[in-house]
């Protein structure tokens, strides 16, 4: 996959490709520092650029402030507007408040494990952004197994949550710990199946090459495989336990799940990194499904990293939207949904996509031209709807015998005897 011609010139002031600036800095440093040091500085520069400039502000602005403002609007209230101009300093105020709050440790808690859990919860979030491409050559580590790296690193915070829940020696947090582990394991399987469908078409595991594939073929994978995108969204919102599936810290049932005993900045780390993982998941979705930094050729004029950031926050809005409106599912409903619905549908999707990929190989006898992709896209969209409906009917969901949304109405009291229905309903 040759790197396509890119208009951005090589001089440092061209903001369309921020890697020029880092290249200029590193060349400057190279003259009088040993190469080992420059290697470390390059990685640090990458970390500063990706995490401190993109993730932390978007965590604070979009994650804390934006989410509370948008959900406030959904609930016909204003949302934070006291601290700072129009409430923009609210996240910083929260952080300061959390820092000066006392981080309690319960008497019989497992102190060492309770102290380590937030650290292990935070570290993988930073690791996740090493493989995500912000622009044509704005990526810290373009490793050939980036997709697997993402799955591997995103399975570590589950263990940290379990450690937090188990070590807090509190019945509610034990509930939360067991729930989060059981749910994440059962939602990781359909997630991997859906992503395998994507890999079949793009042919590589590296995220940069996936973006280039989508750019060269002028099609986004979300149109090519809408079912994989839907499965990805549901599985990721289950793993991050965002609202339709936030049973690990279900406020109304088990107080705060595995976070019950945490207070002060320890809780703050968990809360902040929940949003960090949501942003990482939406960045990953933007790269894999929504064409990353490419926008059908427009990325020559608009800075590619701006396109990427816009797509990430667009996907993040889906999380905010579901959090603001949907109620929560029960644990056993989630489990049956994962194993009886998500997994079979993901498998069928994988089979259909594999046959398409083989057809694509045969029909274009190896040249893999672009034309057939649009045909596959239409077929896949129809297939997605058909599979979901057919499998739901197979599992026994029949819309006709639904309980009506309106009760029965009677004109006079009938005494203490059950009323045989007169008008409508049973």
């Amino acid at each position, binding site marked *: 996959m040759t790197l396509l011609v890119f208009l951005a010139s090589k001089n440092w002031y061209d903001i369309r490709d921020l890697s020029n600036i880092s290249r200029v800095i590193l060349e400057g440093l190279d003259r009088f520092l040993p190469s080992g040091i420059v*290697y470390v500085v390059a990685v640090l520069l990458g970390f500063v650029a990706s995490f401190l400039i993109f993730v932390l502000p978007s965590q604070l602005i979009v994650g804390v402030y934006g989410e509370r403002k948008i959900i406030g609007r959904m609930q016909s209230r204003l949302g934070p507007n006291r601290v700072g101009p129009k409430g923009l300093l609210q996240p910083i105020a929260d952080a300061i408040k959390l820092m000066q709050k006392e981080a309690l440790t319960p008497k019989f808690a*497992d102190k060492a494990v309770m102290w380590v859990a937030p650290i292990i919860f935070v570290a993988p979030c930073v690791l996740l952004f090493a493989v995500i491409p912000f622009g044509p050559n704005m990526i810290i580590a373009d490793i050939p*197994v980036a997709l697997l790296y993402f*799955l*591997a690193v995103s399975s*570590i915070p589950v263990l940290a949550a379990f450690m937090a829940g188990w070590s807090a020696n509190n019945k509610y947090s034990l509930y939360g710990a067991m729930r989060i*582990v059981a749910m994440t*394991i059962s939602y990781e399987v359909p997630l991997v199946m859906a992503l395998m469908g994507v890999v079949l078409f793009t042919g590589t*595991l590296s995220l940069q090459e996936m973006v280039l594939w989508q750019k060269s073929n002028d099609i986004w994978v979300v149109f090519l495989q809408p079912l994989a995108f839907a499965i990805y969204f549901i599985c990721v919102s289950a793993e991050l336990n965002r609202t339709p599936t936030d049973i690990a810290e279900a406020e109304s049932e088990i107080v705060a799940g595995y976070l019950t005993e945490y207070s002060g900045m320890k809780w703050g780390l968990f809360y902040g990194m929940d949003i960090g993982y949501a942003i990482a998941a939406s960045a990953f979705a933007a790269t894999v499904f929504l064409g990353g930094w490419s926008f059908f050729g427009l990325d020559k004029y608009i800075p590619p990293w701006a396109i990427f950031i816009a797509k990430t926050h667009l996907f993040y809005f889906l999380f905010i939207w579901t959090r603001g409106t949907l109620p929560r599912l029960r644990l056993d409903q989630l489990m049956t949904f994962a194993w009886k619905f998500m997994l079979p549908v993901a498998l069928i999707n994988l089979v259909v996509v594999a046959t398409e990929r083989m057809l694509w190989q045969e029909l274009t006898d190896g040249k893999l031209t672009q034309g057939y992709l649009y045909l596959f896209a239409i077929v896949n969209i129809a297939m997605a709807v058909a599979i979901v409906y057919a499998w739901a009917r197979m599992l026994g969901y029949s819309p006709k015998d639904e309980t009506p949304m309106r009760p029965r109405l009677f004109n006079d009291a009938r005494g203490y005897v059950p009323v045989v229905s007169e008008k409508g309903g049973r």
Partner: protein
Amino acid sequence: MEGFGVVLSFWVLAAVTLVSAGGVMVSRNLFHAVLFLITTFVGIAGFFVLLSADFIAMAQVIIYVGAIAVLVLFAILLTPHAGRDNGETRMLLPALLLSTCLGAVFIFVIVDADWRTISESPSVGVRELGSALLGTWALPFEIASVLLTAALVGAIMLVRSPEEEAEDALV
């Protein structure tokens, strides 16, 4: 494999892995032992990255840290009364003796033999592994999948309680 960074990371990984493996041996609380076990798995995944076997490193983290460690944790949860003190049997001393002798033999052989090694790493990427698994090693690959299904069914049969079996018998 030269360069200061590589050697430094090797010694760090070796220290982390061996110390956490020792931790599994020494720690008093079974739950801490599992946490040390997880650190060992991550340390070994680091070794695989050092030996430029990326896919295996990622598979190791996903399968061992993501699934087997959780399996062990759930096993501990499902056996509440069994002692969680990670104690040793009376066979502690003979076990230590045996493993030190075995270790001595291994290290002697390693140091004594002169290995014909190649310097640059052969291309062992995902593509080659995929073609190998489905090419020359296709049969063992299918047998492995059958083995996994058998293990799955076996584990469920072992753990099912009489009521669930009775339940199924009725239907």
